[in-house]
């Protein structure tokens, strides 16, 4: 196409059978999309995860016991915790069948007192938490929602209180009111409210920018309703986690206050008071009096923290789903197709599957082949989920786990690379293959100067000294037409616009002069005016350096601009491939044709006419039809299409197509859509 129209068609003279030279590459079907169990509601998933976590189960059990001890202590306690037995021999008794944990200095049943202590602990939490949440959450919401100077003023005051020692605040309240555990807890509640204010404000600030909050405001809901119905539910999970952890802290503070003698009264069966007494007498009576209340206290605080962690884990999304971990190589059945002679990268009939729990593995790539010639550009086009990115990743030994390459052969630079180890691959990928990503900014480390990041691959993969690498980096920036490269070397990524950052991304990919450049939607995140300039740059660089390019995109216009050859992918298969001029000039596959027709650029009707559409949606890999995968959306589908999967055929002009009816459909028949009757 552009730029090589006077070169011979390098594929036309290839023997048939090298057909799929071109084949395909597609989008990564998101692993989460594959594994997501759609009937599992967030609530059920939460409980399932809670019960799977042993620490979560332990903490829930412990709280069940404490809850009973609090609500209905008589059920657990064996004695009245206040009933004294001052008979001398009954004081400081050791554990016995009557008094399971022995007695204290007034002959009261120790076990029953520890049980009743749960009530004191919970009462403290209740008071402090009511104040902390009751003050902190509304204040944080108001502050975050309101923003501006008032927000800054509120947060300034909040930070002052936040930095005061909690015990100090508790003592201040005791001094103003009167000494009692309840009053101390009021002070603790005020201190703790600052934590909730911070958290709530942060979440509110973030949620308020969410589109669904805009949507709620547009629909006319009042601010309090938006806060209660839209922000609060999203706040809830972080609040519960925070509350669990703070509850642990409150118990500890309550015990500390009682221990210091300014909390619960000396007769109360409070764990802190018991500890304090135990400490006073442990020289004469031994350590036993400290153990039960101490253990109850530690276990409870621990349980609160474990509960917080368990809730956080149970709420959290599967982080593992997003990380790109490379799967282990398994036995790969070789392809029966010969490699493309002279190709830099030749991929032959690769299959990739993802395991699905309890079921047959799901195949997401099926017999995909492609070839890239030196100095040429292969464009891979398809909708999301068609397998474009997956094809390229798998070909380069990067099949994302838990996916597996199960069939096919890959040749790079005349070498069979199908089953290379990861370290062997790393060597090739770092030196001979450069990758350009969709979000240039995401690839650059925000904390490191751009120049330094550009020098890294040079220092790693070449023998250059530091000064030479810097010199080379400046040249690279100049080569990708970043104005004023010397100055730009010392800037941070945030000082670059999207287009300039993508130029840096290209410079990084080119740093070690790779033979193959992979560009996965390199301009999708950019403005259209900048997109053109980036594509120009890629084409110029290719002309100067003779680099091969694989360009992955959903935009047929971008493909038309730069690709020599094109592969169209649908549902994990190549459906059509050939020289760009052929594909755009005379599409043979109904899907290619339909894709071109849906573009407004190709809309030739008048004002009132609708765009052509492809009905339905791209099916998920689990729902791929047995026959032609496009059949449910194809206007030419026949019974044969629904039953029998078409194979890739090589046509006389070198175009490959996967359709039972391409012959009847090609040429004139397409001109008048709808006139074809099959």
């Amino acid at each position, binding site marked *: *196409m*552009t730029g090589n129209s006077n070169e011979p068609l390098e594929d036309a003279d290839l023997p048939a059978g090298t057909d799929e030279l071109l084949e395909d590459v597609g989008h990564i079907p998101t692993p989460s999309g594959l594994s997501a169990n*759609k009937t599992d*509601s*967030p609530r059920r998933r939460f409980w399932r995860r809670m019960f799977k976590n042993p620490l979560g189960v332990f903490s829930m059990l412990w709280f069940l016991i404490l809850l009973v001890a609090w609500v209905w202590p008589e059920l657990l306690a064996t004695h009245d915790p206040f009933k004294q037995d001052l008979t001398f021999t009954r004081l400081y008794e050791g554990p016995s069948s009557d008094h399971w944990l022995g007695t204290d200095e007034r002959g009261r049943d120790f076990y029953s007192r520890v049980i009743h202590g749960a009530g004191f602990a919970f009462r403290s939490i209740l008071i402090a938490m009511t104040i902390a949440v009751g003050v902190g959450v509304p204040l944080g919401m108001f502050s975050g929602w309101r923003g501006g100077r008032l927000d*800054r003023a509120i947060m*300034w005051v909040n930070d002052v209180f936040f930095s005061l020692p909690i015990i100090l605040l508790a003592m201040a309240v005791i001094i103003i009111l009167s000494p009692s555990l309840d009053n101390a807890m009021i002070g603790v509640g005020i201190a703790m409210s600052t934590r909730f204010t911070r958290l709530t404000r942060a979440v509110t600030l973030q949620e308020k920018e969410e*589109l*669904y909050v*805009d*949507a*709620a*405001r*547009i*629909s*006319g*809901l009042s601010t309090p309703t938006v806060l209660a119905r*839209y922000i609060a*539910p999203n706040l809830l999970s972080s609040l519960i986690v925070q509350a669990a952890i703070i509850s642990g802290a409150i118990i500890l503070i309550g015990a500390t206050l009682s221990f210091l003698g300014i909390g619960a009264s000396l007769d109360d069966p409070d764990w802190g008071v018991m500890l304090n007494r135990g400490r006073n007498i442990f020289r004469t009576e031994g350590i036993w009096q400290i153990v039960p209340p101490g253990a109850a206290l530690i276990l409870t605080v621990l349980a609160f923290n474990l509960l917080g962690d368990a809730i956080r884990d149970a709420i959290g999304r599967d982080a593992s789903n997003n990380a790109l971990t490379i799967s282990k190589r398994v036995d790969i059945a070789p392809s029966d197709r010969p490699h493309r002679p002279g190709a830099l990268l030749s991929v032959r009939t690769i299959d990739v599957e993802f395991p699905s729990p309890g079921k047959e593995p799901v195949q997401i790539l099926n017999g995909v082949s492609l070839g890239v010639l030196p100095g040429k550009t292969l464009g891979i086009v398809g*909708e*999301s989920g068609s397998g474009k990115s997956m094809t390229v990743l798998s070909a380069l030994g990067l099949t994302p786990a838990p996916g597996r390459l199960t069939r096919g052969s890959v040749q790079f630079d005349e070498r069979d690379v199908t089953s290379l180890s990861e370290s062997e691959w790393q060597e090739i990928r770092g030196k001979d293959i450069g990758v350009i990503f969709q979000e240039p900014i995401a690839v650059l480390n925000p904390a490191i100067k751009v120049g330094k990041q550009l020098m890294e691959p040079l220092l790693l993969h070449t023998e250059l000294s530091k000064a030479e690498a810097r010199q080379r980096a400046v040249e690279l920036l100049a080569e990708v*037409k970043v*104005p004023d490269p010397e100055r730009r070397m010392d800037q941070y990524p945030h000082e670059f*616009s*999207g*287009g*300039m950052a993508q130029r840096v991304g290209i410079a990084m990919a080119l740093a070690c002069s790779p033979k193959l450049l992979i560009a996965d939607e390199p301009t999708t995140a950019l*403005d*259209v*005016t*900048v*997109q*053109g*300039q980036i*594509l*120009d740059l890629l084409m110029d660089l290719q002309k100067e350096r003779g680099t091969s390019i694989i360009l992955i995109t*959903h*935009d*047929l*216009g*971008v493909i*038309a*601009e730069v690709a020599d050859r094109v592969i169209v992918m649908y549902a994990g298969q190549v459906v059509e491939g050939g020289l760009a*001029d052929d594909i*755009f*000039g005379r599409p043979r596959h109904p899907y290619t044709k339909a*894709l*071109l027709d*849906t*573009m*407004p*650029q190709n*809309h030739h009707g008048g004002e009132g006419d*609708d*765009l*052509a559409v*492809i*009905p339905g*949606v*791209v099916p998920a890999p689990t729902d791929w039809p047995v026959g032609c995968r496009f059949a449910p959306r194809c206007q030419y589908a026949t019974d044969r299409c629904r039953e029998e999967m078409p194979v890739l055929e090589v046509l006389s002009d070198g175009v490959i197509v996967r359709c039972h009816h391409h012959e009847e459909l090609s040429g004139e028949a397409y001109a008048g859509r709808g006139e074809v009757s099959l």
Partner: protein
Amino acid sequence: MTQPLLSVEHLAVHFAGRGRLFSPDPPPVKAVNDVSFTIDSQRTFGLVGESGSGKSTVARAILQLVDIHDGSIHLDGDDVTRVARSAELGFRKRVQAVLQDPFSSLNQVHTTETIIGDPITRHLAIKAGDERRERVADLLDLVGLGHEFLDRYPYEMSGGQRQRISIARALAVEPDLVIADEATSALDVSIQSQVINLLREIQRERDVAFLFIAHDLEVVSHMSHDVGVMYLGYLVERGPSDDVYAQPTHPYTEMLIASIPFPEPGEQAKRRGLRQTFKVAEPPSPANLPPGCPFENRCPVAMDICREEMPAVTQAHHGGEARCHLHTSGPELGGGSVVEFIRSEARGNVGV
């Protein structure tokens, strides 16, 4: 002349910089400056421009989600610039929106029935129950979704389906104006054309006007009767969409058109040559706009006056307006198209 449904006059929106409590604020970001346009009922006005040009901010200002620095907004002749006044006029019922990201514009914790039903309860006073459920089901019919979607959560739907839910929600209270901000941008090509057709069909069947915002001029001009082109907060050109597309009167519009990739290699090669006459440069920051034309450093035909003076709004031949010195200074296009002029200049410069 009849009253326009929506009229935006000299709209300006500035975002104050975020300073510390007791320190002076940095200069404001001038996101929207002196923007004026009108939308007649049952018509579509398209707004196009690159990222950060202020399209969404215009939408958010009309929807009263951000504070307006200057200018006014009228709905059916009533001043709705201030929130308090607009509340009396039922503004929230009359103006609805479909937002960009189908993944975050729906609250994940509610089912379709609640998402679409909430505004019905609020504005049409129909409590949750059979009647409301029926209405929601009718709306699902309208947007081409089955009734099984009534009890689904957003995470159980595809992007295209979610966007249909957003459209159903916007239409639920029978608004006069729907603002669609990048409503189709996040969708796959084949789904995008479905949603565009749906919006057009709805306009034919229901008495509703659209403000259609997108970065893709091709999509916008297909959807809209009139378009406005934004650059760095300014409306640089406005007019009937077919004419603006065929005979642009502002160099930036011409650049946008030349940049649209065309799915045909021969045609694309032609556009490429034209596109390359525009300069590679970073646009200035909206917090630090130059005194002259904001497009000056990328414009292939910039003159001395462009660096010094902000161009005024001029009448264009297509009946709309352009904001460019070419129409009043230098070669004096006087409202005519820039196409021939830029192409001949380009030939001169590049020596083609």
